[in-house]
């Protein structure tokens, strides 16, 4: 392709046409902060872990159970809490390990894979938390219905009419779905903007190597 040869000649001829950056300027640059997507993923991931951990810590299940006079359930909740802490710790460790692996001296394909895997690790954590959220909601409803004396009149109403029961189930389902949808959308927007280009380039590279 003769146009490409022409371009190559011109490209190499213009090698020295760039305005040169001085050593002092380079010194200044290396002391500035990076704004790479890896850095953003790290920041957002830490915020996510903090947020979800806070949420699970803030919920005072013991107080609630004492309040409805069913302290015998506290043991189960403690067990659940410890399991939760263990999962958080395992997660933080694996995230840190993944993050450490990311290196710009890897091949482009490897680098992309490492970034996407790091991101995936956080995603699993988020799904785990969403799952726990749904699980807690269900357990919460069951406990409320089965043990909370304040619910007695409401229970009678539900039992007496299939319509009220249907409405209750409907409202609860819609609320859960809406919550889920909102979170899903939030993540789509957050990581969509951050990783769209990386995904596209990764796909392109994989396509070449098929």
């Amino acid at each position, binding site marked *: 392709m003769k146009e490409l040869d022409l371009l190559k000649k011109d490209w190499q001829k213009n090698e020295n046409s760039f305005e040169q950056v001085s050593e002092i300027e*380079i010194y200044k640059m290396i002391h500035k902060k990076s704004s790479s997507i890896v850095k953003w993923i790290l920041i957002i991931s830490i915020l996510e872990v903090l947020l979800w951990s806070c949420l699970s810590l803030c919920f005072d299940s013991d107080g609630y159970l004492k309040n409805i006079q069913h302290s015998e359930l506290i043991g189960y909740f403690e067990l659940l809490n410890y399991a939760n802490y263990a999962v958080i710790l395992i997660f933080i460790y694996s995230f840190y390990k993944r993050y450490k692996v990311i290196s710009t001296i890897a091949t482009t394909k490897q680098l992309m894979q490492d970034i996407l895997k790091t991101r995936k690790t956080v995603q699993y954590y988020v799904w785990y938390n969403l799952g726990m959220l749904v699980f807690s909601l269900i357990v919460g409803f069951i406990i409320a219905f089965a043990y909370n004396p304040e619910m007695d009149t409401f229970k009678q109403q539900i039992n007496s009419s299939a319509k009220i029961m249907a409405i209750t189930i409907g409202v609860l389902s819609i609320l859960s779905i809406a919550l889920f949808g909102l979170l899903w959308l939030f993540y789509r927007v957050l990581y969509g903007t951050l990783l769209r280009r990386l995904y596209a380039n990764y796909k392109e590279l994989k396509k070449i190597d098929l």
Partner: protein
Amino acid sequence: MSDNLEHSFVKQLQENQNIIHKICRLYTNGEDAHKDLFQEITIQLWKAFPKFRGDSKFSTWAYRVALNTAITLYRKTKRSINTIEFEGRQHFLKDVEYDYEEEEQLKLMYKAVYQLNDIEKALIFMYLEDKDYQEISETLGISEVNARVKMNRIKGKLKKILNPLGI
């Protein structure tokens, strides 16, 4: 990190900075974006520098980190507008002896290259830099055969951009 390491890095980068400039020229539009990417690449190079063993040339090592930063890590702040940027290339031509037809062809070629996607640009970049397929495959992490196949496809794509009707 010690001052010595810093000094050695800054000196070598200063000498090899054209590599970064060329990548910036291919991947960004306008002066601000060029400076922005230059800075990000410099930071990434500096971060990776302690792992640079010196068993390869500084420039070979820098190619990889710089390309990886441009393709993978860098977040474009603004949408690219190819045509505006392209006008800025004019000054490269001033020393060249005037051949209008050639100049016109070059203009079109640069414009066509800007229309390629990030990965295709990386392949073209290394081709323009006279890198062999082995180095291209090692940098991008694809096989040599596939790099060759892709390069031929890119040539076809460029031809099509230059001459969409195939006359």
